[in-house]
């Protein structure tokens, strides 16, 4: 009579196992959920906090620039390999852009045929962009950056910003804010050296 069951203190092992199984599977599920959420939060933390903020494209192969100008001309910078390119991001609502616009237009007229100038209007409407271009008598190719796709590809962080692409299709650098005539000329001369090589 040493049987434990005779004292009523122990449970049938089969019954014990049957009751423990759902409890164990529930705990496993909870641990799984916590683990998945934890991993996702770690990923968010890594990208959001530890990753440096996006940097403007300052070197390497230039991201593609394909757009249609306000005059209906399709421009793809890949078609201009061998020609240095100056890309200016601007907007009609941007006051600092007005300071540099005459400088850009003058430089374009001076270096036309050797350097291509491109203007991309950011978050702008055609009516306002056209009025701005007419006001400053802008003659180099300009068009809207639809959906800010090129702006995003170059990691531009505001307007005006100007990017310099050498004759080999590589980004040679950028300028943040309105550019002075001296700085623009210096950059263009550097770009022209790559075309001569």
């Amino acid at each position, binding site marked *: 009579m040493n049987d434990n069951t005779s*004292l009523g203190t122990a449970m049938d092992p089969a019954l014990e196992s049957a009751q423990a199984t759902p409890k164990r599977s529930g705990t496993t599920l*909870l641990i799984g959920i916590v683990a*998945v959420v934890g991993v996702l939060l770690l990923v968010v933390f890594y990208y959001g906090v530890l990753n440096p903020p996006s940097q403007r494209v300052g070197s390497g192969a230039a991201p593609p620039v394909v757009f249609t100008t306000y005059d209906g001309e399709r421009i793809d910078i890949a078609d201009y390999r061998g020609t240095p390119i100056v890309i200016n991001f601007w907007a009609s*609502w941007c006051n600092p852009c007005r300071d540099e616009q005459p400088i850009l237009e003058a430089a374009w007229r001076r270096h036309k045929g050797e350097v291509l100038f491109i203007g991309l209007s950011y978050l*702008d409407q055609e009516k306002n962009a056209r009025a701005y271009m007419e006001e400053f008598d802008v003659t180099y190719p300009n068009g809207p950056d639809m*959906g800010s796709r090129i702006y995003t590809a170059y990691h531009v962080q505001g307007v005006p910003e100007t990017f310099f692409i050498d004759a080999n299709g590589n980004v040679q650098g950028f300028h943040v804010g309105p550019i002075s005539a001296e700085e623009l000329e210096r950059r263009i001369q550097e770009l022209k050296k790559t075309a001569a090589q």
Partner: protein
Amino acid sequence: MRRFLLALFLLLLVAVPAAAQENDPAKELQKELWCPICQGIRLDVCEQKVCEQMREMIDQRLAEGYTKEQVKAEFIELYGPVVLGEPPRQGFTLLAWVIPVLLVIGGLAAAVVLTRRWTRQTVSVAAPSTADVIPEDEYLKRVEEELNE
């Protein structure tokens, strides 16, 4: 009666313009769209020049006969999905859409598991099986018998 009519008149004076404003598609669009260069500022309250231009464009397009959805579609094409005030559903920002859904599913699963467990415990505490209960005197009697063996 005169008082009632006066109150009704005053109520209409306030309610009619408010109702008209609620049905104004331009105002509705301005409330549904967001400034593309600010963080979390709605188009109807943003003082940026770009937003002024956007509000003008809404008025102009609606006057030209565009529907609200057509105006919205044009804004998305021109300004990008940022005007909807939602994170893009691609790349890393896709997590902003996925995580809340997973949290809700996880929360529901946890609630189900915990509720089941608590219910089971409550039942076993509230209604112990009479078959397992042995009267104390009988229990002691058995212990004594076994000790004597």
